[in-house]
């Protein structure tokens, strides 16, 4: 038998190493953009066509060692050992795009970098690359012709994966969209890793976009937390050119801190609940509740008022702690009354609202609150529908006519001619501010019917038993003005709430506000 030396198939290495790490050749423009950003570009312009790829990166300075390595790799006449060493060097530096150039078919390649130590690397298919120093345009320029490239796929890939680039990227002069589109809130953090965090209006699962030099390399999801989006820069954490698996592995130690930052962002959004649109407010409340499911975040979030309530007809904001306190006040199912809640599409005016806050919560918020606090909700009872009878309408019209007739027939008694009790009654009406019901009160002679006009004028026959009793009652106790007016208005209207409050104030609490539902 024989001895053989273990060897390296450089041809195979050259052919496989870069393509084996790329999704496809259409990834090349994005990788070139990554390279330019890593080299310090302040903006990147790309021209992507079927047979031509051009890149111009202002401010980028590619390390000359990298360029020399590329030249060596492309030099088919160079010793295999050198080419392999150069390829491994490119690979170690994460210059995947340049390593890939060695395997792709192209006709001409031109790399230029300006500045005092400028250089130009030019190569043609089949020929030896030439590296010249002291020339070249400012920044970094790459031109590749004769390339077979799926331009549409390459553009799409770059548009998708270059959104979080720290510098503007343009394709054929048109800037690609950057960042998250219309997030509810976004923030940039530097610890534990440089990242942009955002809360989107939709989505259920937190998503991390792992970037290397601003270009997305891979992504990860973190279920079980409030849905947030994070574009995390991994350069410096993962080795250059790290595989997607290595990236995902590298992010693991930082997840907890990133989630904490995201929860802070949720808290920040929730604190602005009053200023948010209803759908955004609901989203913020939901995210807050999702985060509050974890005990370690609950303390931070418990005091943030994010849940709208109606208390005595007034809109207020309640926090988890407030609701917890309310639930302790008999909110748990079986212990007492559940909390009254209405959904956003239910009109609170149609329901009986009690002294306790009426919560305005969506299904998701209720379900999460139920899970977190064990609190039960119930819909408050609907108000009885007001009666609208034709008779009432006709009465209002006829009342005015009857009032006019009575005034003509009986004549209004002047104030000077009124008895003391009657003047006291009139004074009480005026002082109580009972208007518009009645807006004005006149006494007339006789004991026929009491008349009320549609605009609140009350004509009281002085000899009418009810009028006499009312005058006496008010003279005896001014708080009786309320039942007196209720009786005199004849069931057509009620006096002002102030009159009722005076009556109740004189007799102790009676519950002026509508009842809460059990």
């Amino acid at each position, binding site marked *: 038998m*024989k*001895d*053989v030396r273990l*060897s*390296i*198939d*450089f*041809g*195979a290495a050259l052919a*496989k190493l870069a393509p*084996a790490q790329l999704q*496809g050749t259409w990834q090349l423009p994005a990788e070139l953009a990554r390279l330019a950003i890593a080299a310090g570009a302040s903006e990147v312009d790309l021209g992507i066509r079927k047979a031509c790829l051009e890149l111009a990166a202002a401010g980028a300075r590619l390390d000359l060692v990298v360029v020399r390595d590329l030249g060596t790799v492309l030099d*088919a006449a160079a010793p295999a*050992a050198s*080419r*392999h060493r150069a390829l*491994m060097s490119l690979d170690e530096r994460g210059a995947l795009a340049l390593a890939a150039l060695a395997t792709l078919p192209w006709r001409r390649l031109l790399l230029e970098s300006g500045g005092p130590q400028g250089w130009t690397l030019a190569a043609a298919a089949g020929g030896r690359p030439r590296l010249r120093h002291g020339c070249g345009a400012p920044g970094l320029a790459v031109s590749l012709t004769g390339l077979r490239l799926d331009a549409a796929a390459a553009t799409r890939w770059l548009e998708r994966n270059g959104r979080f680039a720290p510098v503007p990227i343009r394709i054929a002069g048109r800037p690609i969209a950057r960042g998250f*589109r219309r997030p509810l809130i976004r923030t940039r953090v530097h610890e534990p890793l440089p990242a942009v965090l955002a809360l989107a*209006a*939709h*989505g*259920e699962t937190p998503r991390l976009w792992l970037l290397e030099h601003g270009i997305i390399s*891979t*992504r990860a*999801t973190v*279920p*079980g937390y409030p849905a947030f989006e994070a574009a995390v820069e991994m350069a410096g954490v993962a080795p250059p050119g790290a595989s*997607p698996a290595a990236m995902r592995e590298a992010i693991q130690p930082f997840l907890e801190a990133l989630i904490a930052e995201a929860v802070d962002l949720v808290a920040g959004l929730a604190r602005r609940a009053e200023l948010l649109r209803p759908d955004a407010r609901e989203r913020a409340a939901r995210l807050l509740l999702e985060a509050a499911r974890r005990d370690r975040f609950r303390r931070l979030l418990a005091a943030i008022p994010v849940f709208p309530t109606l208390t005595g007809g007034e809109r207020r904001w309640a926090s988890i702690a407030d609701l917890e306190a309310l639930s302790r006040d008999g909110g748990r*199912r*079986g212990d007492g009354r*559940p909390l009254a809640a209405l959904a956003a599409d239910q009109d609170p005016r149609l*329901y*009986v609202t009690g002294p306790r806050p009426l919560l305005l919560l969506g*299904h*998701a918020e209720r*379900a999460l609150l139920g899970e977190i606090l064990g609190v*039960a*909700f*119930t*819909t408050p009872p*609907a*108000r*009885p529908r*007001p*009666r609208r009878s034709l008779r009432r309408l006709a009465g209002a019209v006829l009342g005015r006519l009857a009032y006019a007739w009575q005034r003509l027939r009986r004549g209004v008694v002047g104030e000077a001619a009124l008895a003391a009790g009657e003047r006291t009654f009139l004074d009480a009406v005026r002082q109580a501010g009972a208007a518009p019901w009645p807006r004005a009160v006149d006494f007339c002679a006789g004991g026929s019917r009491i008349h009320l006009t549609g605009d609140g004028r009350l004509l009281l026959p002085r000899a009418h*038993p009810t009028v006499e*009793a009312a005058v*006496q*009652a008010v003279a005896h106790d001014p708080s009786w003005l309320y*039942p007196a007016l209720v*009786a005199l*208005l004849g*069931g057509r*209207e*009620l006096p002002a709430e102030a009159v009722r409050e005076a009556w109740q104030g004189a007799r102790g609490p009676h*519950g002026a*506000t*509508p*009842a809460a539902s*059990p």
Partner: protein
Amino acid sequence: MTDRRSSDLSFRDCALAEATRYGSDPWVFLRELLQNARDAGAGRVEITVAAGADGESITCRDDGCGMSAGHAERYLFSLYASSKEDDERQVGQFGVGFWSVLRFRPRRIVIRSRPRHGGGWQVELERRLESAAFAPCAMEPGTEIVLERLSTDGEASREDLAREVYAAVYRYGRFATRYEKPDWPSLKRRRERPLAITVDGRPVHTEMTLPAPASVFRRRGLRGVVGLGTEPQVELFANGLFVRRATSLDELVDADPLRGEQGSGDGDEGLDLPASVAPRIVLDSRELEVLLARSDVRQTRHLRRLVLTAERELARLIERQLRALRPPSAFAAVRTRLAELAQRWRAAFRPALPARVLLAALAGGVVAGTVVGWAALGGSGAMAPVASVQGEVALERYADLGARYRGPRLDSMVGQAPRLALIYEPRDRVLFLKALTIDDPANWPEGSAPQLSPWGDYAGTRCRDPQACVTVRLMTESGPLRLPVPTGHRLDPESLRLNGNHHPVVRSLQGEPLLLDAHQGDTVEYQTGPAPEPSPTHGGGLRRDVPLGLEEVADRLRELPLDARVKEAVAAVADRVRYSRTEAAQADYEAARARGLDPLVAALEIGKGDCDVQNGLVVALLRTTGVVARLAVGYVGRNGTVVPGLHAWVEYLDDDRRWRIADASTRSPPAPMPPPAVAAGPPAAGEMAPAVGGIGLFVPVEVPAPPSLGAPAALVALATAVLVLGVWLRHSRPWDGWLDWKRNVPATPPHAETDLAALLGGALRHPGLARLPALLHGRFVPLVRPGGAVSLHQAKRRAAASRLFASAGGGRVAREAAARGRCVIDASTPEGRVTSLGLAATDLDAWERLLESSTRPPLAGRVNRCLEAAGESWRVALAPLDAPAAVVDLARLGLGHRQVLLDPRRAGLAGAALEQPSAEDVFRLLDAAAAHLGLAAADRARVLAEPARQALLERFGR
């Protein structure tokens, strides 16, 4: 030319650099070794672990095709070189995977290998990895890798090492598969089998399952299982070898960062289930393209298809789980299905108005075509039945075929044959179960049967390899029986059980296993395993006389090697004798037979025949060319049972004395031969269904009457209908899953109810879950009314109208409300509790407690009389409350008036006022109640006016 080899670089450094790409797991090299074994066609991989004072070692031995020394030099010992680059069925292709063994930090690597044809060799690599010295080595075909290192931990025991290795191999390769060439030459698809991996003899392979509820699915090129658990997890495998783990399907596919922001939120993301029923998914595909170091897979359409399939299966699983928990009524099922269709329709055609218009036009055209065609055919409904697959097939007990088989002859198609009461495992294998051997079909004495008498001991085999063995179970008729055995297998006599008891088996004249004393209804179970032909002479001898017309073929075949000879013989016969079983063909055949031609020659004469005739000719041809061959008659097994009807095929002996299969009838589809014992009905004109996967599906199909040329539109409509039916059937494949926890997790208590509650809660919390029509429209929310339930959709609608109630106690109020048809959720169930909480259903238990504590003293009586006089529909009662008032809306329940409950203490009403109330007390109470009830001002005024007047007059009137 440039030298492709770079000899002055350190091989070790480069290999180490590549090995570090494989991530942080030090055992990742085991996956690469498994992958290499799989790619080498191994059926078995044995990993053994040893540890002692001087070090630890791992040995990986496979029975694959092995390597020649030259192959190893060219590919194994040359980094980045791979022999698998152009073979899409191979997993490895980068030429670096093997060297991940350096992660083990071996001080010594020994590689032994022996190809199937050639001598064995071994190489011992030293630590520097500079050269390899080949030495001869005696071993079985295959490859063995030995890795030795110094002990890393003096305290670590061999068991610890073995445990770690087993865990790693299990993690990476528990679903590993291999593809083996089928036994049947015409079966084009390669068959997938488990790769039998053992670690210290302990098998690693497991079925791709998950704890219930779970659903296994298999499509072309992919398989997987979806289940529901407590933690979301997705595991991705390529060719059964682990690639990566993720927490959601969404994570696997490339996505636009804007996705989910631009859309409505519905349908843009995968199914996001609540944590308590989180999706657990295992996916495997042989179509995936892995990146270097298997760090990820490429974003190909295969990956997207895999993810899409898994999402659908997950949705299906949930739907099935829901249906199993609460079987829907027929109406609900139809409604759910319609909702699904509507949802798919909306999802598919949401953005494209032109597409909608086009489809609508097409649909209109089809409808119009149908109407026109119908009219053209007379509109009488007399259209001929088309492609009506016949219904259920009766089961038939197994009887010996000797008395029933009449020899090779052409029979016309008769009614559908019954299905045999025979099942086998593993179900995924396609088997040719031979029940009768015809050694020389050309010289078959017509009307006679092969002798059915014991002919000595049966030389069976022992089934040791569960992967290769087949277990057969059948129900018998009485009498001696030849037992069906897959071609190439022999029966394991030790395994035979007759009604559960061991029973001997003897040999028939043709060497078949014979069961002598079976009775009607007996159950026989036995195992078979692959084994060579034990008899050196068996095969019935060779023929000298070539069938008429095949002499030239025979001469040509004699020059060919065995496999080519068989292939050519099959092709020659299939070219000359077309498969046909029509009445006309039979008439021709009988006419030829009447002229004195023997059965096979008659078939050659008319150019038509069925499977036993065609394959009888192949047997005759092979036997004249020196191949030991015979005709096998029996059954084709698919999916764990046999296809109705008989089939005949060729068995021939290969160089290893193993019986192999050839079949000339698969060019034209095979058909069942009508067993004579089966009463033949009136023969139906018919052709056979097209072959599927190389095997005829023995399903007769009625042929439509020739369509009128005046009705092309009807044909279009019919074609559309058939297409739709096809699509429907394609999607209606049998389901392989389990919803019952007992199936495979005996220690786990059932959580079905909890899971359903979690799903409902999830649907309330996550709008995305409402995309499951089955969840939204299924009646899963139990009502207090016995047997009653409502759907989440209905519950939401009622909640919006404030007509959703709940009761955990099921008290009188709840029961009576339910009896009046009100929607009262049973909140004592998890589903009811979750739904009533989320939708804020009115708690009837609280109402009941209030009503029970309420009283109606004279004061309340007077107030209520006032209300009655005023024509009001509400009443007042007094009760101790923790609030000034409460409203119990019994009117909404149909149980009477709305009740306003007031706390007399808070109302400042003393005992005397309650018992002997004044008109002022009445007014005060009524005023308070009206205010609490939230009556409109005008209504309050109307209600209060008279009591106010009474109060005035009583106190101050004259």
